[in-house]
């Protein structure tokens, strides 16, 4: 392994600009003559708009335009889309209501977009918005899913009379019912997976620009996938054809899913830029982020696990209601269906599984993918059930898992997925050692002496990443293919630019992708630069989410590098007057087999462009190759996290005493960056388990709409993490990568809750396990113990 090649903990190339304040985020971009947009948002969760009077506002200082749903309709700008078709059990298509970028006749959640004011300054736009008079007829709102499906509930979209978007299912009901009929033991759980706000530290932002001379648009925006944004804005929303629309996603300050989607604000900014003849800038303030960034999770589930007399799992039944909010966001329909139920087998050999999912409209902010997207919800169901089943049957939870793990690969689950490779017991055994499981009893006794309750919680998670084989997702309803593209451009002096359709918003692609190139071409890492985030530079791309940039994005680069090396061999063969078959490429040198005649990579690059040594008709000049990579399977990162907590029964305060993570991500390019991804994921998962939760009041007002009210994890809420790895290389891509971006967020919540419930003598506790929730559960546990 070289110091900068695959497997090395190379320090990040992108860091210099970030630590010196020279990053270029969207809000740092200012276009000459730019005006500012301010969105007037609905204060009501559900209302008819009877009229909008903008006369006074139009006359206010600095106002350039005030645009409403009527204007966007008149210009025939299409509505926002949901790109994944889900069919209900009865075969009918999901019932999706229209989603205009500016409300047309009705608002459906607090924060819905009523009008936009465009003015010389942001202060003027904001001031003028207060002069807009909207006559609302307030309608009853519904925020609770059970209320939403009741007869007589307020109807949010006419197309979906019972507020149900789909009743979907997966698996074999008859087989699962049969397993339960024969079961020796059945474990049942009711689970709420709390709603979260992604809260990337950089708020969303957009700058729309229009160049009348070429009739072309440019949109700078906080996007994880600028090409997908361009595709949707062009082909579906109809802003401009793709060759007249450039989307630039510069440095992006975190995404976690929330910046995948194509929202109203960027659509309006780019459309309005032409309308007002000025660049238009919008940057969310944090309150707007809370109201308008797609939220995550929000499931209510009943789940049952069937065991035979030997403690083997024989069946699983799951019934979930998924809150989709007031409109279907870009990929929302897929999250509680195909990103959720196919993971319900966990790491276990479960012969029969049946899952039903109802997707439900409520008068709340739309819900879509948030770090893990469906897989954390599935893991929470499986790992809570398994833990409780082990306790109910009096089996050590580690032993229970070991008994039920999948042991041979490939393994076909009853819910679509074919696990390719893994070694689940190895990860668990390593984690048990690292966590000093043997010493637990002693530590529990020590805590008890101090009046504290100590508990341990396991989470053996699996996820499907490397999203995704195009044909497979196409057959499941996706509107796009999920390949990735790359182009490797070699310059005449042998330096290299790699253009990738992946997008880095914290993942460190400028480093890891360069490590791959340095490793394969045998050139210094400083001679490689990675270009991403601009649709005019990078030909095509599907972006970054679902832990796909390594497994899919780097595979595309790998394939393009193959082509560069193959072309280099041809060039070298001419220059060294040898046959192409006799040329070897190793350690940055093209050499004639069995001789000491060779040319280094830079010389071959130069010869490729000088082209004196070969006839351009036989061999094209130049050294530049592109490739698309379409995966043949999902990848299956898996691992075991162990959380150990100490609970104070008097105050309900939970302290995480130690955290052990053992993950199998397949081959690792940069362990420092991978561990960083694990740390961050755990941080968000612990946030969900202990601190974070969205709360709406019954009128649909978002009560947790600022960092004062929504509890984000801070440094003193979180522990240090002890991170280890096992490795079974992924067989379906050339690098053997599985992906690591979401693991921590998927693994952490059940580990924490399993630990707290262990401390509380198995008393259940809801997420977030705030001191109040834990204290209540502790009191119940104490009362139960007293009654025994």
């Amino acid at each position, binding site marked *: 392994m070289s110091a900068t090649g695959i497997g090395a903990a190379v320090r990040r190339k992108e860091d210099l600009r970030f630590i010196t*304040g020279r990053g270029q985020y969207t809000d740092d971009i200012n276009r000459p003559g730019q005006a500012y947009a301010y969105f007037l948002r609905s204060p009501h969760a559900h209302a008819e708009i009877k009229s909008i009077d903008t006369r006074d506002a139009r006359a206010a200082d600095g106002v350039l335009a005030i645009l409403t749903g009527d204007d966007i309709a008149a210009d025939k700008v299409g509505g926002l889309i949901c790109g994944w078709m889900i069919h209900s059990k009865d075969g009918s298509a999901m019932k999706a209501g229209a989603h205009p970028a500016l409300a047309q006749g009705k608002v459906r959640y607090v924060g819905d977009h009523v009008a936009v004011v465009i003015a010389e300054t942001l202060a003027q736009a904001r001031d003028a918005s207060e002069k807009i008079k909207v006559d609302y007829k307030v309608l009853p709102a519904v925020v609770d899913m059970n209320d939403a499906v009741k007869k007589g509930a307020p109807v949010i979209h006419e197309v979906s009379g019972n507020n149900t978007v789909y009743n979907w299912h997966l698996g074999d009901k008859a087989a699962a019912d049969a397993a339960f009929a024969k079961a020796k033991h059945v474990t049942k759980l009711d689970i709420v997976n709390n709603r979260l706000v992604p809260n990337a*530290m950089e708020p969303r932002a957009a700058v729309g620009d229009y160049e009348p001379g070429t009739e072309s648009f440019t949109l700078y925006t906080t996007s994880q996938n600028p090409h997908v944004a361009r595709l949707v804005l062009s082909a579906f929303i109809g802003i401009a054809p793709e060759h007249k629309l450039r989307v630039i996603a510069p440095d992006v300050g975190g995404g976690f899913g929330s910046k995948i989607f194509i929202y109203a604000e960027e659509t309006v900014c780019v459309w309005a830029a032409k309308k007002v003849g000025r660049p238009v800038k919008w940057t969310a303030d944090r309150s707007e982020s809370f109201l308008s960034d797609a939220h995550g999770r929000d499931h209510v589930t009943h789940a049952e696990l069937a065991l035979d007399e030997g403690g083997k799992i024989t069946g699983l039944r799951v019934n979930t209601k998924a809150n989709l909010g007031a409109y279907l966001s870009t990929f929302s329909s897929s999250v509680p269906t195909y990103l959720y139920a196919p993971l319900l087998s966990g790491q276990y050999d479960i012969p029969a599984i049946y899952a039903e999912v109802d997707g439900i409209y409520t008068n709340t902010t739309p819900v879509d993918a948030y770090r893990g997207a469906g897989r954390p919800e599935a893991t929470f169901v499986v790992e809570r059930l398994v833990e409780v089943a082990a306790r109910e049957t009096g089996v050590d939870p580690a032993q229970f898992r070991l008994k039920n793990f999948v042991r041979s690969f490939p393994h076909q689950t009853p819910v679509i997925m074919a696990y390719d490779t893994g070694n689940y017991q190895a990860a668990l055994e390593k984690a048990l050692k690292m966590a000093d499981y043997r010493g637990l009893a002693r530590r529990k006794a020590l805590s008890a002496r101090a009046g504290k309750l100590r508990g341990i919680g396991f989470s053996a998670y699996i996820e499907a990443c490397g999203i995704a084989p195009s044909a497979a997702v196409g057959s499941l309803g996706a509107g796009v293919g999920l390949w990735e593209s790359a182009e490797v451009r070699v310059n005449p002096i042998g330096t290299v630019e790699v253009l990738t359709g992946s997008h880095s918003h914290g993942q460190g692609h400028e480093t890891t992708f360069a490590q791959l190139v340095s490793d394969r071409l045998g050139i210094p890492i400083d001679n490689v630069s990675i270009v991403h985030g601009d649709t005019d530079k990078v030909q095509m791309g599907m972006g970054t989410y679902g832990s796909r940039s390594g497994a899919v994005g780097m595979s595309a680069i790998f394939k393009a590098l193959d082509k560069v090396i193959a072309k280099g061999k041809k060039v070298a063969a001419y220059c060294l007057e040898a046959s192409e078959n006799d040329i070897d490429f190793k350690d940055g040198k093209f050499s004639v087999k069995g001789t000491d005649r060779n040319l280094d990579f830079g010389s071959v690059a130069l010869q490729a462009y000088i082209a004196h040594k070969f006839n351009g008709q036989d061999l094209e000049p130049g050294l530049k190759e592109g490739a698309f990579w379409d995966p043949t399977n999902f990848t299956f990162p898996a691992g075991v996290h162990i959380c150990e907590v100490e609970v104070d029964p008097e105050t309900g305060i939970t302290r995480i005493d130690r955290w052990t993570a053992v993950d199998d991500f397949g081959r690792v390019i940069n362990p420092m960056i991978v561990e960083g991804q694990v740390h961050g994921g755990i*941080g968000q998962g612990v946030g969900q388990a202990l601190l974070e939760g969205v709360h709406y009041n019954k009128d649909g007002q978002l009560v947790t709409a600022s960092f004062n009210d929504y509890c984000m994890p*801070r440094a003193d809420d979180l522990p240090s993490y002890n991170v280890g790895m096992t490795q079974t290389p992924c067989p379906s891509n050339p690098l053997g990568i599985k992906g690591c971006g979401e693991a921590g967020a998927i693994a952490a919540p059940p580990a924490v809750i399993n630990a707290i419930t262990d401390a509380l003598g198995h008393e259940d506790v809801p997420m977030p396990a705030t001191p109040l929730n834990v204290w209540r559960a502790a009191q119940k546990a104490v009362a139960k113990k007293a009654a025994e």
Partner: protein
Amino acid sequence: MPKVSMTVNGKAVSANVDARTLLVQFLREDLRLTGTHVGCDTSQCGCCVVHVDGKAIKSCTVLALTLEGANVTTIEGLAQDGKLHPMQEAFRENHALQCGFCTPGMIMTSVDIVNRKGNTLDEQTIRHELEGNLCRCTGYHNIVKAVAAGAEAMAK
């Protein structure tokens, strides 16, 4: 519009500003020093931390006009003579940043912690002192390591 003058990163600057202009807006919009970020509207996140007269403050929470004559250092002014500050080096060396959005505020806060608490910092102190700075990417583990390492390096 009233006029305000101050020293920013060693340079004298003055401008006429709307009375409601916050320091962070003055830095970002008037001076185009965009390294100082805005992550919230409730003084909670610390993305905007700069030093005013040697002390860390949240620049989203102070009006530019109140800082007449002040000496302001932003992240852009931390490296001296082309040499990174030890805390900047420590953040890079310990992989204490991912998206980089919280990083300028984190580094400015961290330097302030060392100024107040000295060069030997235990984990608990660091975690407690970082309370006013949110990071959504790193889970803080490597930030805590970086602050400890940077604190030691600052003693040299």
